[in-house]
């Protein structure tokens, strides 16, 4: 059923697909994180903007992915840009929500102490509030990453899709091996990245694991 010889003959192509998939995912999550961080910090002290912003990101999130790409292709073509616009759009809501939830979890006494100690607004954010929000933000990045890996399968339809394209070709040629390889590697990629991020999160926040000794 599985043509192992094909796999061994095409390791280069498979590796290239994995790399493309990975790059698309990482790029999309990074851009999404940058946008939602800026948005989060802008609305942090202006709470009435949170509703509209989250609402807008929510609308983006609910647009069916196929429809979004169909909409984008006439404007930005079958390009990396189209793929990234779509992928980034789907990360925004998850990331923004987690950034805000993380920042909100900072206790009032910690905020008050930071302010009373003479940290400026920016210093409070960078040195106290964001570091304390990190565990929740990392949790958001993990969900966004796994979601994006799945969505990259869809961007294959506009010619930008790493493992998705591998599977698509498998369908077209009725060649199941390509489909299986694409499927297994996608799942492996999702699990692998998720575990990696979880590990990074743990290493970056040693304090979060400590209980009263």
């Amino acid at each position, binding site marked *: 059923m599985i043509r192992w010889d094909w796999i061994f003959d095409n390791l280069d192509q498979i590796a290239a697909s994995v790399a493309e998939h990975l790059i698309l995912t990482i790029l999309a999550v990074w851009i999404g994180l940058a946008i939602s961080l800026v948005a989060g910090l802008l609305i942090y002290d202006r709470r009435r903007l949170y509703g509209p912003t989250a609402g807008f990101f929510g609308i983006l999130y609910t647009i069916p992915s196929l429809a979004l790409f169909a909409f984008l292709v006439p404007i930005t073509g079958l390009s990396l840009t189209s793929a990234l616009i779509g992928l980034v759009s789907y990360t925004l809501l998850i990331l923004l929500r987690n950034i805000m939830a993380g920042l909100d979890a900072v206790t009032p*006494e910690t905020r008050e*102490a930071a302010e*009373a100690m*003479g940290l400026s607004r920016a210093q409070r954010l960078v040195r106290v509030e964001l570091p304390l929000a990190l565990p929740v933000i990392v949790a958001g990045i993990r969900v966004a990453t796994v979601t994006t890996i799945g969505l990259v399968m869809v961007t294959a339809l506009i010619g930008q899709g790493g493992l998705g394209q591998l599977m698509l070709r498998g369908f077209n040629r009725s060649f199941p091996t390509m489909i299986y390889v694409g499927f297994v590697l996608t799942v492996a990629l999702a699990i692998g990245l998720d575990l990696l991020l979880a590990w990074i999160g743990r290493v970056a926040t040693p*304090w979060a694991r*400590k209980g*009263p*000794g």
Partner: protein
Amino acid sequence: MPVGRRYGVSTMDGTRRAATVDFEHVTKHYDAGAITTGAPGAVTDLTLSVPAGAICVLVGPSGCGKTTSLKMVNRLIEPTSGRILLDGTDVAARDAVELRRGIGYVIQQVGLFPHQRIWENVATVPRLLGASLGRQRERADELLSLVGLDPAVHGSRFPAELSGGERQRVGVARALAADPPIMLMDEPFGAVDPIVRDRLQNELLRIQERLAKTILFVTHDIDEAIKMGDLVAVVDVGGRLAQFGPPAEILAGPASDFVARFVGADRGLKRLSLARVRDLTPLPVPMARLGEPARRAAADPLVRDQRFALLVDHEDRPIGWIADRELDRDGGITADMATPMSPLLDPETTLKDALSMLIDAEVLAGIVVDRDGRATGLITTEAIATWLRPSGVSTATSIEAAS
């Protein structure tokens, strides 16, 4: 106010630095209706002066505006009207961030940064002021030792790994890190158990003896106020100052029914814990020395008058009492003629403890001894009772009692 003179910035030690704090007609209300309704946290026309190096305790029922008053000093809250001066400079004229770096701040919930190690927490303000990493660590270690923590053990831990009492010590260390001339403490020991609280209070007093900061201390506990305060400001609901003065003065003469009720029905007994044996003038003690001819001792006018003598050794150390009829004999005085003694009172013993010792021993007088154990006088229960009478409190006594 005479009390101020005791707290002039000391030059005994280069690290001592303190500032005066003056509230001038400070008012804070939160909405238009608050002026008439007395909303919680409001402050009304608060005027008080805290001399440099004194602990001033703001005490009052919850919602009386004491915390609001504190937070207006470091501009976490801005007053509606009035001014607060630190060393004569209006806080409103200073940059809030820069101002706060020069004011230590300790709150009940401590507010340590959970993601930073203990030494990093302590070094927060030095870091903000640009101290090198080495200097930060050094300063943190110094302060952790000062508050009774071991830098080697606790320094690298995270706040979640410490007990409540330990965290509170770290909070004090962090507030002291940049050697601020002023400390604001908002119920700093309110969240720890009574035994730990008592220890932390004593340690703060010990640290204060060394550093002589100006400390504004908020509490709702009158006993804590009396214990900690050089000066106590009793604040009524609505942020009205009900009475301001040394604790002994407030206990001896409450200015209003509110103050009298707030300090409690046992305020007389509370005053006893403020004064020490050295604050009373001891009565002269009739003495007989070991080996001295008995008849000569009996001829002493004091002995004749009191009808007893205190037998002391050659160093004036008390051995026991001898009735005058025992002295009516030939020969020298021997130790076996004496009967068991009254309690020995150190000049630093509080009157409360002294009275308790006298009651326990079922006697009416205790012997005051100096550091070398020499008898210097007698303190009677009557003298203590006399001291308790309001007229017995001279200004001098109350200032001494405030220390």
